[in-house]
């Protein structure tokens, strides 16, 4: 879908803040409220905007369930389907958050979420490593999230400017 300049602006604004009022978006891009709502509807219908989600810092929540691990997986690709078949076998597990095909020393990068290190370890040893095509795995646990998808988790928001200046 080819976007107009205004549509592109709307997407950029919503990408940073999905909860902003349509009235405010309209003012910022210089369209009427109705035109803006129609444009957003069109972007949603065309799946340019897939859905609106919240970026949550679960570590702030007491007893939050969760550890995240990045697992480097070496696999044997299969004739005809390459890496796609084994990638699909892996991404179908609910524990798996993301799967990427990589260049370099391993093939698939798999991000897994679990309630504890034990749970992730169990998943790796019982489910992932036992798949036929999987040759080896190396598991790295994420200890702290500093920045994710361009967003800094603990930004320093203090305005250091003096209140009135020429």
């Amino acid at each position, binding site marked *: 879908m080819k976007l107009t300049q205004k549509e592109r602006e709307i997407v950029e604004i919503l990408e940073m803040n999905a909860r902003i009022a349509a009235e405010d978006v309209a*003012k*910022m891009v*210089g369209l009427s409220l109705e035109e803006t709502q129609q444009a957003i509807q069109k972007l949603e219908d065309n799946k340019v905007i897939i859905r609106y989600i919240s970026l949550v810092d679960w570590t702030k929540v007491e007893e939050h369930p969760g550890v995240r691990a990045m697992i480097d997986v070496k696999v044997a690709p299969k004739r005809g389907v390459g890496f796609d078949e084994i990638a699909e076998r892996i991404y179908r597990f609910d524990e798996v958050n993301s799967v990427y095909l990589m260049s370099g020393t391993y093939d698939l990068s798999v991000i897994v979420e679990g309630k504890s290190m034990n749970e992730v370890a169990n998943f790796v040893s019982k489910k992932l490593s036992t798949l036929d095509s999987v040759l080896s795995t190396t598991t790295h646990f994420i200890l702290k999230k500093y920045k994710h998808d361009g967003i800094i988790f603990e930004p320093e928001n203090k305005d250091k400017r*003096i*209140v*009135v200046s020429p």
Partner: protein
Amino acid sequence: MESTKSKYVSTLVHELKPSGIRRFFDMAAGMEGVISLGVGEPDFVTPWHIREAAIASLEEGYTSYTPNAGIMELRKEISYYMNNQFGVAYDPAQEIIVTVGASSAIDIAMRTILDPGDEVIVVEPCFVSYIPMVELAGGVAVQVQAEKENDFKVLPDQIEAVVTEKTKAIMLCSPNNPTGTMLNKSELEGIAHIAKKYDLLIVADEIYAELSYDEEYTSMAAIEGMRERTILVNGFSKGFAMTGWRLGYVCSPAEISSAMLKVHQYGLMCASTMSQYAAVEALKNGRPDVEEMVKSYRRRRNYIVQSFNEMGLDCHIPGGAFYAFPSIQSTGLTSQEFAEQLLMKEGVAVVPGDVFGESGEGHIRCSYATSLEQLQEAVKRIKRFIDHL
């Protein structure tokens, strides 16, 4: 604010009017929860790669003086930049001086060109320093009022009407602080025509040149025949979000530039060394940052201007800078009263228009260089303030 003169203070300085902004700063500074639209600087922190370049220069031990006019590497970058961005060629060896902010560039320009009693035509409303700088240099500031009905664009006739034998220069700022008004090519040509006709210099403060939103920016020096009579002032503060680095520059023909360099070398020696290294990085690799910031300012400008107009504060669309300058005449208050009551009742700091000159009366300057969330809250509070008047 009349005070008795200390015997230690010169008459000239004693008689200089204190900046009207100072009073508002003092009032707002002590208050909690104030949303400030009074800030004349970007809300962005200097992009990291620029800060990193300064850190690297410190690590490498570049902590000594630089040549008076600035490091050659930076002057060359400025020269490329002026050429690429505005189509004006300046010789880095003889026609560019790196200064301590654009303010010091204007200061050395005035001290270089003015003999006692020489007149400078200053277009109001304007940045608070222009008139004092003319006066400190021994000159006389002759004020011309840009009018609201012309969207605060000064007309060539208005300038011509005050030209005398003593007139030496015209002081112009586009995009303008406080009105945000930007002059386009043909409007600049009209003023340039007067400068040529009466053999005047133009001191062009183009510090907001990067922040223009609707039309392509034209530099005064790019107007035909004007390079030789323009003292072009620019800097890194606004476009690159580098206010605290205090780094500006001034470009002018070699005969003026070499004279200005004398004033600069005795007064300031050179600009801060680490800031100069940061500025090299800004010019080499900062373009994408500037574009991102401009995009963000444009959206916020659209938001706030329309919000003002919706609540009945008539506001022209400012073509550049990051100020909206709505009229508050419909409220029946003076701009001082409006700003003071708004601060006290709703905790929103704006700058009353009259501090920028007589023709600013009846207006307030609102900087939209603050987060959208803050702008949304400010709009809500200003609307409530007006509704309860």
